[in-house]
């Protein structure tokens, strides 16, 4: 059975969840996790799966955040990107004549992705070819990137050209930049997403015979400044994100080696009826999911829809207590082993001898200390 067929079976009788910049970026957040790798490669709807298995993800987006995000983007792009042009001119030295604007969100009233992608390709190619006076701002271009064998469509907020003679990815986010600083995790997420777009754009231009230098590794991040709605632009260097992404994408290409290890019959099909109700028994799902090894760490709680499931599975392991704690416990895998070694009721295997010595010393200190309650 081909890997593709295998992944289709694993996903079950639903169309694959399409990747987007966010999900691709997520590949870098816990790349050691086989469970996640398989599910992402197969395009499984993890949110729904987790819920049906009895562990609904703690996520969900507030509509206030969504509204705010859309409103901000609309504002920055209003009137032929008047505000954006100001930022690019004042902040990044975009020449005055460069105001050309192409709307790629639809092609003559048609929004088919193939059509939009084709048009994006032709316009960007023309711009790249003729350099000057052939397009500066490209609104919602539609790019493509190969992820785990499938072609994924990607839609950056905007692409600017003729900025230092290169294409620049422009990312608009509605989190605030206050006194020149913003939430480091949000910026990191934005940077990784931009990196995804840079990759895709480079792929497109490579197809037209242009080298990677035609796309800058500096993305333009546009956010509201301080507590106002006024936008501010900052250049973000995404070189690191690019190398990481390339590596993780190439590993995803090798997903077959992972898939081969799985039982042939494995599937996460939820048995959804036409009313949209899932009938697959949770117990069955749980069993299926557990056949794919996970690598749970508490950080998953911030990034993966399966986190509650995996956390429950990881109860009693030191990993569930966090990387540092596991380190401090000498990389002993389970809590029971830790305590067994600490109070000497468990005879350490050779490789545990040192950990045991350390844990016993710790236990003794806690015991000896009045109030240590060990």
């Amino acid at each position, binding site marked *: 059975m081909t890997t593709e067929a295998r992944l289709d079976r694993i996903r079950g009788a639903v169309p694959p969840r399409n990747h987007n910049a966010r999900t691709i970026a997520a590949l870098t957040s816990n790349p050691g996790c086989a469970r996640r790798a398989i599910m992402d490669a197969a395009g499984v709807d993890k949110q729904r799966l987790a819920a049906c298995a009895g562990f609904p993800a703690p996520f969900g987006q507030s509509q206030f955040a969504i509204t705010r995000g859309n409103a901000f983007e609309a504002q920055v792009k209003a009137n032929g990107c008047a505000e954006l042009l100001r930022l690019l001119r004042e902040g990044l030295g975009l020449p005055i004549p460069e105001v050309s604007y192409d709307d790629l969100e639809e092609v003559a009233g048609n929004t088919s992705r193939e059509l939009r992608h084709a048009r994006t390709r032709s316009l960007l190619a023309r711009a790249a070819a003729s350099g000057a006076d052939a397009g500066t701002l490209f609104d919602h271009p539609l790019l493509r990137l190969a992820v785990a064998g499938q072609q994924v469509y990607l839609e950056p907020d905007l692409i600017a050209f003729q900025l230092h003679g290169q294409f620049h990815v422009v990312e608009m986010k509605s989190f605030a930049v206050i006194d020149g600083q913003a939430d480091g995790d949000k910026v990191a997420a934005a940077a990784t997403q931009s990196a995804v777009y840079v990759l895709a754009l480079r792929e497109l231009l490579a197809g037209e015979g242009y080298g990677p230098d035609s796309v800058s590794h500096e993305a333009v991040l546009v956010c509201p400044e301080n507590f106002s709605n006024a936008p501010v632009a900052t250049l973000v260097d995404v070189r690191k994100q690019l190398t990481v992404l390339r590596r993780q994408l190439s590993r995803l290409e090798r997903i077959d080696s992972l898939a081969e290890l799985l039982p042939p019959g494995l599937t996460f099909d939820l048995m959804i009826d036409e009313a949209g109700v899932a009938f697959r028994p949770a117990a069955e799902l749980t069993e299926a999911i557990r056949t794919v090894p996970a690598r749970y760490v508490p950080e998953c709680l*911030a990034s993966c829809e399966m986190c509650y499931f995996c956390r429950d599975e990881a109860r009693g392991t030191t990993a569930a207590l966090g990387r540092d704690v596991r380190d401090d416990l*000498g990389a002993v895998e389970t809590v029971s082993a830790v305590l067994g070694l600490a109070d000497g009721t468990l005879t350490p295997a050779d490789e545990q001898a040192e950990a045991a010595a350390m844990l016993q010393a710790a236990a003794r200190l806690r015991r000896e200390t009045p*109030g240590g309650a060990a």
Partner: protein
Amino acid sequence: MSTLTALARAQAVARRIAQPVATVRHVHVSDRPLVLIPLALAGEANAPLAAMVGDEPGSPRLVVVHQPRNRDQRFAFAAALAGIVVGYVEAFRSAVETIPSGQGREPRVRCADAPQVLVPNPAGIGFVRLLGRSTRFRRSYGEYAVDPAVPVLGRWLTFLAERAEYPGSCLLLAATDALALHWASGQSPVEDLNLAALLGWIDPPAGMTGPEAAAAAEDPVLWPPAGPVTDPTFDNEVLAPLIEACARAGDGTGARRRAESALEAAVSAQLTPTWGLMWRGVGLLRALPPGGRVAARWDGDKDAFTRHAEHLRAGGPPQPRRDSAVAAARRLDWMERALASYAVQRALDDPLVLAEYRMTGEAFVGIVTAAEPGPDRRLGQAAQAAPADHRHHGGPSAGRGRRPAAVPGPARAERAGRLRVAIGPAGAGRTGRAAAGRPGRRGGPGAVRRDGPGAHADPGQRSGGGRPGLLHDAVRLLPAVRDVPAARGDAVDARRPAARVRARRRGR
């Protein structure tokens, strides 16, 4: 984090309840703290939605913004909050105490007590910082004028938030931090950021185990997030329709009044559970005996509070947006010293904390048999660890006793001197230099009891072993004698807080 704390977490898992990692209380808890629980509107930069605030468990006060996107209403909120917070804070300016400052200089006068603001979690501190930033530069005249109380609030909030960065300060505390300092839960530090879950581990309701309570605490419907972020399903299913209703209803109509009261009811329902948790947390902390040096640190807070109050009275300018180069360097120096002495003080106050240093071989235990004056000024507080029973905890030291406030008790001679120490409870009678400043000499020729696992290591070699003693840390941190490689040598341990800080910003 150390092996002891980690072990405590493991024990917590097994015993299904949090384990103590401190035998005394390391934070000051005011008799009348101000609990502040802020909520913000998702997606906006610090757009206040509501706050529950008060210094009486029985009488929380609720401030709600009916149109969080409306800037005027934001500043109306700030003004309302100012009415409560500034009132509370400035009340502490009235009562003063006099400090004899010796050396013939005339005694100082400072505020007899200082305010203490408690928020649920580190994100709450972030909210205070941002609200301070967004209000302290506002003007009460001209275009976009605001209530005169608003900038004052901004400056106090900024002061509190800056103080909160200062190791050992207790003017503004996050409940989760304060609790995690004293108890190890059976969950990860990331999950400890959920106040309800953490308290579930520490003090589960009758008939529940820690993990059960913590699990229950993760249901946002039963236990709403302690803010400033609200639960998305609350936003979408409850808050949005209510805000919409307020907007739709015309001013002054009955419909508007009804919509507003419905909104207030919903928001208050989100805040009340956390309000209860906050005071439960306060109770738990109060129940712990205070550490010997907590009061001294609180005096430092009182001084800081007094200085800022004076600054305001004298009409000084608001805190700048960012530190200048000089200010930054000075602040970093303060913070590093504060951190060093804070670590030392906690170790000296609390055998369980000291045990962590014994674990890594930075501290040892012995009987002080004699002390002779000597040239080595670096002995610092080493001699004063536990004067009562003359047990001597070598190693930890604030170094040079530069912060006398933090140095109670024993005679100078002892501080600057040479100790003879009988090592180990057994008092094997071997003697040696108890503590010296240079890494090469710490531990010295005389063997000392090695508590850590490396006990087999021959004593003569202890010098370089483990991290440099706290003594060394403390000394190093005085810029005059900072020893750079040693400083960087501590990277191992100092990266840890970094990791935690990152985790925090992710948690609720």
